[in-house]
């Protein structure tokens, strides 16, 4: 046993552990480091293929059969058309979802994106998108679907970015009830995230929020655009621990399975904090 502790194996082991601890400190202190960029660059093409292969999952046999028959007919019609027609059509369909958003807010700079990976170790359904710094994505950029806010960019590297969803307690969005004008903070909860629900917290005791009200962002911190739809109130509850009221909010998309998204890289008021107003942070 004494020989073992003096052996080369133990020296190699101790050196490796030391190097890993140094790398751990290094990678934790730098936002986009070469290690994660290398891993993401190596696995990017394979992930892209597997993500595309599973994008039409969760269909029953009969649905697939109907889809197959439909596509067979379409194929016959389209055979004479250009070779790249399918690619163009797919891209166009995806971009069309965000057309209305762009039309309503011409000041937004939108980068359409698809979910590349889902974080199996994350408890609040965070995911990785296929756009990075090469597409002008930056940390804190809001991520939206055609129906509203989905989350924000927490980490970014060359080709990918990580998104924390509004189901996570890490997210804090200053929000307002459009009907009653009550303000508060939208943040995720471990109790509700599995049901694709988030919470509208820090409500005043005299709030007038009711089920069915629509919650939107206030935009006061400059981290999210003003008026971005977050979801619909389904219930109003009382937190006995904090002695405050909160509303349960259902986003209009199923965040746990969503695949087509857009990142807002630029908008009016970005980074401008409005003073003397409701608090919003992230």
């Amino acid at each position, binding site marked *: 046993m004494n020989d073992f502790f003096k052996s080369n194996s133990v020296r*190699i082991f101790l050196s490796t552990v030391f190097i890993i601890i140094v790398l751990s400190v290094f990678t*934790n202190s730098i936002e986009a480091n070469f*290690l994660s960029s290398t891993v993401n660059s190596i696995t990017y093409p394979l992930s892209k293929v597997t993500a595309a292969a*599973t994008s039409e*999952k*969760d269909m029953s046999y009969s649905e697939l059969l109907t889809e197959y028959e439909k596509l067979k007919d379409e194929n016959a019609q389209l055979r004479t058309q250009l070779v790249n027609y399918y690619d163009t059509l797919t891209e166009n369909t995806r971009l069309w979802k965000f057309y209305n958003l762009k039309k309503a807010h011409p000041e937004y700079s939108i980068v359409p994106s698809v979910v590349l*990976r889902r974080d199996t170790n994350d*408890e609040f359904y965070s995911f990785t998108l296929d756009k990075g710094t090469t597409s002008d994505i930056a940390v804190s950029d809001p991520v939206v679907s055609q129906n509203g806010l989905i989350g924000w960019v927490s980490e970014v590297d060359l080709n990918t970015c*990580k998104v924390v969803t509004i189901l996570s307690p890490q997210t804090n969005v200053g929000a307002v009830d459009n009907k009653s004008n009550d303000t508060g903070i939208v943040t995720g909860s471990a109790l509700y995230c599995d049901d694709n629900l988030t919470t509208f917290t820090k409500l005043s005791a005299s709030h007038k929020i009711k089920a069915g009200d629509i919650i939107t962002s206030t935009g006061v911190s400059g981290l999210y655009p003003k008026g971005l739809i977050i979801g619909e109130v389904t219930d109003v509850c009382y937190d006995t621990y904090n002695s405050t009221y909160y509303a349960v909010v259902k986003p209009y998309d199923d965040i746990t*399975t969503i695949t087509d998204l857009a990142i807002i890289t630029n908008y009016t008021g970005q980074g401008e904090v409005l003073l003397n107003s409701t608090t919003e942070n992230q």
Partner: protein
Amino acid sequence: MQNLKFFRYLAYSIEILVFFVLSSTPSLFPEIFGATPCFLVALSITIAVFENEVPAMIFGVACGALTDLGFSNSIGLFTISLTIICFLLGFCANNIIAANFYNVMLSAVFIIAAILSLQFVFAFVIHGYDNAGTYYINHYISRIVQTILCTAVFYFVNKFIYETLGD
């Protein structure tokens, strides 16, 4: 013999890369009780029991680093813990215990429960999130059980690789 060793390590490397990509592919594996298994943890344990301590540690580093870097951009819990555990497993399997199915599964139960529970502590308890206990029961227990079951499957796969391409 050196050639066989090279092909064995190559087989392990491909196995790790493929399961890293597959495990992170959206909607590929269904969530059972709100969780999917940690394939790379199971893989590193079953590789470690068939190899000497240094190669075992290297594959542990690879699995841990991929798990950490794939999703958080930083090296952390999985890399450090799998490095230490795989080194010790590699040493024990060669000198102290026999690398049979029952011993591997018994080790896996304790190791997987410890690593994933530690991850829960870092992800939930330290941040002070509400309802952390509920989340542990609803998700982590399922993840621990699934990862242990995967270890059983990977044990036979890696045993086959080791026996086919063994020294």
